[in-house]
């Protein structure tokens, strides 16, 4: 599951995001450019400023599931160091799924914001 594991224990608060959210994040990252699994996990950490960290053990099953659903597709390429690696990229279906999930996320987060920002009487 998605959880933050950092060296600094007092900074961590497990972000209990649902599986669907993880899917959305992965799709988005792959929408930017095709990359392999390791790079995805690094990018996620990097962009979110280390707040969102996906344990490697849950990253790969998630990627494989996305591939099975047909939202991403994989290709074995010879990387810059001359070694073979599996590169994932977004498909047309995946792009549509990403849009849908991003919309849902927007609506959900605005609703939550509205509730949280209620002024106390």
């Amino acid at each position, binding site marked *: 599951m998605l959880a933050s594991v950092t060296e600094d224990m007092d900074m961590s608060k497990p972000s209990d995001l649902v599986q669907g959210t993880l899917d959305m994040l992965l799709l988005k990252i792959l929408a930017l450019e095709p990359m392999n*699994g*390791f790079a995805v996990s690094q990018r996620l950490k990097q962009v979110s400023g280390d707040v969102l960290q996906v344990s*490697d*053990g849950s990253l790969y*099953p998630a990627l*494989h599931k996305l591939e099975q659903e*047909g939202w991403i597709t994989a290709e074995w390429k010879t990387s810059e160091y001359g*070694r073979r690696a*599996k590169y994932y990229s977004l498909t047309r279906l995946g792009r549509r799924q990403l849009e849908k999930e991003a919309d849902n996320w927007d609506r959900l987060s605005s609703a939550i914001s509205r509730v949280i920002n209620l002024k106390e009487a």
Partner: protein
Amino acid sequence: MRPEHWLYTIPLRLRSLFRWGQADQELDDELRDHLERATEEYVAKGMAPEEARRRARLDLGGVEKVKEQCRDARRVNWIQDLIQDLRFSLRMLRKSPGFTAVAVLTLALGIGANTSIFSVVSAVLLRPLPYANPSQLVFVSEAKPEAGMSGLGMSYPPFTELQDNNRAFSAIAGFGRHALVLTGQGEPSEVSTVVVTSEFFSVLAAEPLLGRVFVAEDGQRGAAPVVVLSENLWRGRFGADPGIVTRSITLDMRPYTVIGVMPASFHTPFLNQTNQVWIPLAQDPLHSVWMTKPPREHWMAVIARVRSDISSAQVLTELDTIGARLAREFPAEKGWAIRTEPLQQTITGDVKLPLLLLLGAVGLVLLIACANVANLLLSRATSRSKEIAIRIALGAGKRRIARQLLTECAILGLLGGLIGTLVAYWGVATLVPLLPSSLPKFHAIRVDGWVLTFAFTLSLATSLVFGLAPVLSAVASDPHKELGEGARAGESAGPRRARAFLAVAEIALAMVLLTGAGLLMRSFAELTSINPGFEPNHVVKAMVSLPQFQYSTPKQWAAFSEELMTGLQAQPGMQDSAIAGPLPIVDCCVTLAFQIVGHPPMKEGTAESANYVPVSPRYFSVMGIPLLRGRLFNDSDSSSSAPVALISEALAKHYFPNEDSLGRHLLFGFPANGIVSREIVGIVGDIHDVSLGEEPGPMLYVPFAQAPLYGGEVVVKSTLSASAVVGAIRGVTHGIDKNLPVTDIAQLPNTLNASVAQPRFRTLLLGLFGAIALILAAVGIFGVISYSVSRRTRELGIRMALGAQPGSVLSMILRETLALTLIGIAVGIPCAVATTRLFTHLLFKVTPYDPVTLALVPFVLIAVGVLASYVPARRATRVDPMVALRCE
């Protein structure tokens, strides 16, 4: 998911299914690549390479686990798992060929036996009748509830009433059995004749192979005589003559025009013969007389097809109305009611219980076989417990392991089913010729699609049954305990108890089967030891028939029979010969009503009845029936002398309990003679006239010369060989008239045997199953005890080392066996009693609680159990203490 999306993903799923091996390799590569990159990352951050590698690995978690989760994410997992399970299971089964062979053979025996019996049950009971819309067909019968009579045929006038005035049936027809003599086509021979009303073929919705079937005009009196042939007769006797339609054939010396041929797939209900002809009722020399007489003889079997829009309640009310109207019109019909039941039930009703009994018995055999295989599996599971523990420790889910073990069981079951099907082919081929001829055989009994489906389903179900216990016990094991340092090849209590339980269950089931078999055997022994009342040895019988149209008067019949008897008596070597009406057991009886002159008259509509037989004077000496009082018939009892009769002891005792019956008169008569007052001149011994199993009934004998029939059964007692006797009968008969057929030739002892064919068949089969059950139970006990001994080698070694005598070890093992067996018997007795109560009416003179059987069967089981455990027990005494103490 939207449809197009789903379609799009199929290639992906298929790809992961088929290129699974490749996909697995790729997964491996992917994760390895990840670990390398992660290690590099950590090294770049300044960690030592070893430390970096360790961190990377920790971050990932268990590699195998991640792999498994990735595989789970691809949702075609279950097929891949199945294939993997299959390959693994096959490998494991190949590794222990002995175990696999024994298990598969045991299962094959059980499944094969079940499939064979199911073939019979399927063809006889389950398949619908071979007519269109068979559920619409009903059998119409008459019943007289107050006299306790039911299921009787209809007489003609009520039938016509029903035919003309009903709204419930789309077609209704009556039919009866006769046999006419076919001449002019080779040897004169009798042909099974079905006498039918005009709608017969419409009721059954049967289409002819050639020509046409009867229409209403054919059934009118005075119409041209027509006949329909069966295909087998057409091919056999008429050489498949394509111009058979409109040809004329001679039946009972009368010309009939052939109008059609029925295909071989058409069967007349109840009268299923391959060589058969059908003639309209109006054209039958014997039965057409019933068309004009008032109702008395209930001789017609009536079948009807219910309209599709009529409910069964409506049919009942309709029949009640018509029944009431008939009672008003014909006083003799008072008290009679008309009933219907589905035709399928009428045809198969009698054999349903015995067949289901056989199926139940063979099912028990299968259960015992399952228990044996389960025991084998339990033993094997114990030796594989280490392997399973390792797998669990490595992260395999318990459900996954259970699935794999069940796959092994399924493979065993299916293999057993495959070989069992081969056994069934052989079994059915052996069984079919042994089946009693009274079994309705509309469909060929063979291993067909239905039966194969049954075998397949049974194999799978069986695997589940015998696999459940071992699988559950295998996955319930605790890996820590199994793999711990001190873990020896000892055994937890669970599997041992399960094995003992299975052995007990086997013995209980065997007890049930053996009790059933024992009861049937005793019943059959009682049946065949009955004295039939006559002496069948060295007696040959043959039927001689006189065609009605040539020999139409009783005078002619009497003259013929006299000439026949004189001729036969003159033959050398024939000790004694006679001619008679229905013979006991072989033929159906003729029951007549009679009145006793001098006794108070009976109420209108009720009468005493007895079985009626015209016999020639020497009949009693041929058949060995003793004369008790008075005199037998002699040659002076002719048509011109006073009418006389002989009665059986049963009749005398019942109707003349306190008086002498000799000299009294009885009023009765067979149609041809009308009612006549006859004097009782003698009393003869009782005979079992209907069957060995039924009590002797009251019998009326009259001299053949005074009440001749149009032919009869010739019985000859002779020390000559049967073929010589038959040759002589034929010779004399054809000397008088060369066109007369001599049929139904048999030796009386054989006919007696044939009359108990059904009980014999049941007893043989159940005895066979009992024997198989006994062997399986013995094997089961052998397995349990010998495994228990091998597990206790250490303990036994210690005992011997401490000075125990071989004798005491032996008795210890035997006591264990006895305990198992006795518990099994204790459980089995109430089960046996409960089950045997179900087929009480199949037993003859033996109660379901028969003490002899109930005492003998446990004795046999104990003996067999002790015998089975003897070898392992001996092995236990030969344990070398030093070897035992050293082995771990």
